[in-house]
């Protein structure tokens, strides 16, 4: 007769199948409940652990909600001025080509104030990785319109919705960057479902692995939520993201191994 196994019996080290990676620090992240930043931080940390590159990794944090990312990732990090992370990363990688260098940037940082740094680092074929978190809004400063804010989407500086005649169009930076000969891998992912998390992690891993090939820049965009900025619950925000963000920012690879995806 089989004995009924209790949860306490299962929760033993030998049965462990998932635990928080040691590349994340113990610090509780300051992000709002349900924010995708935390998930992406964790995936980056897990990839760093799995690739065993913690001592060879140098990250650059942006200005925006993730400005304090250096508190959560246990690797050497530099904090850049708003939009300038790709310039820092250019120097870091050129001076230490054997290190794994990445930037982590939001949409305001990467697609507005840092457009030039992003485009030119990509076009030079700098051999580092950009993680681009696109939630269509300036989160940290309180939900203002971003370069990626959708048409008709409300924000604190487009309170009646983004009027593209007056405020201009949202910018698809990832599509732009994919066109540049200096990029080797450009992909758009999400982290709102387990399946998407698994795919995003593979993309993050590939983007890091690419640095060994020295063939150019890898950019992983993560379309993410901002439930506080969007004024929704985390679950609603993810649903809204699927319905509204994904049609405009479709998920999938744009460029793989230097070739545009079909």
């Amino acid at each position: 007769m089989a004995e009924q196994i209790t949860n306490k019996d299962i929760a033993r080290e030998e049965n462990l199948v998932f635990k928080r990676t040691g590349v994340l620090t113990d610090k509780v992240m300051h992000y709002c409940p349900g924010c995708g930043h935390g998930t992406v931080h964790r995936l980056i940390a897990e990839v760093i652990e799995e690739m065993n590159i913690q001592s060879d990794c140098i990250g650059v944090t942006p200005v925006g909600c993730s400005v304090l990312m250096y508190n959560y990732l246990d690797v050497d990090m530099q904090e850049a001025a708003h939009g300038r992370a790709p310039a820092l990363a250019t120097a870091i990688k050129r001076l230490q080509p054997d290190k794994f260098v990445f930037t982590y940037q939001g949409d305001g940082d990467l697609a507005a104030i840092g457009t030039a740094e992003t485009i030119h680092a990509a076009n030079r074929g700098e051999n580092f990785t950009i993680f681009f978190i696109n939630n269509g809004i300036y989160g940290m400063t309180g939900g203002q319109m971003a370069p990626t804010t959708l048409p008709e989407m409300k924000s604190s500086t487009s309170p009646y919705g983004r009027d593209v005649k007056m405020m201009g169009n949202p910018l698809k930076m990832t599509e732009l960057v994919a066109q540049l000969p200096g990029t080797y891998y450009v992909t758009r992912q999400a982290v709102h479902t387990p399946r998407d998390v698994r795919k995003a992690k593979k993309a993050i891993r590939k983007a890091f692995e690419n640095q060994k090939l020295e063939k150019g820049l890898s950019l992983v965009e993560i379309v993410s939520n901002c439930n506080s900025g969007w004024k929704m619950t985390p679950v609603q925000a993810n649903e809204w993201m699927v319905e509204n963000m994904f049609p405009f920012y479709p998920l999938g690879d744009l460029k793989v191994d230097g070739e545009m995806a079909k």
Partner: protein
Amino acid sequence: MAKVKGTIVVDIERCKGCGLCPPACPSDVLSLAREVNAKGYHYAYMANPDACTGCINCALVCPDAVITVYRVKNKVN
């Protein structure tokens, strides 16, 4: 026949009660507690622990990495 049985441990004090893990669970194991943690969040817990298969889906979508997952293959007749 081998039946997969799992369990999770939620780091209650670090959980922000965002509510993303219950819909990610294919076995309807998780729910948010009526009680709150020290920060005032309704933390996630296993409302239906016997159904857990240890699939790790809840941990994958957890933005705060507060879920640890265990799994065994439980031999039953």
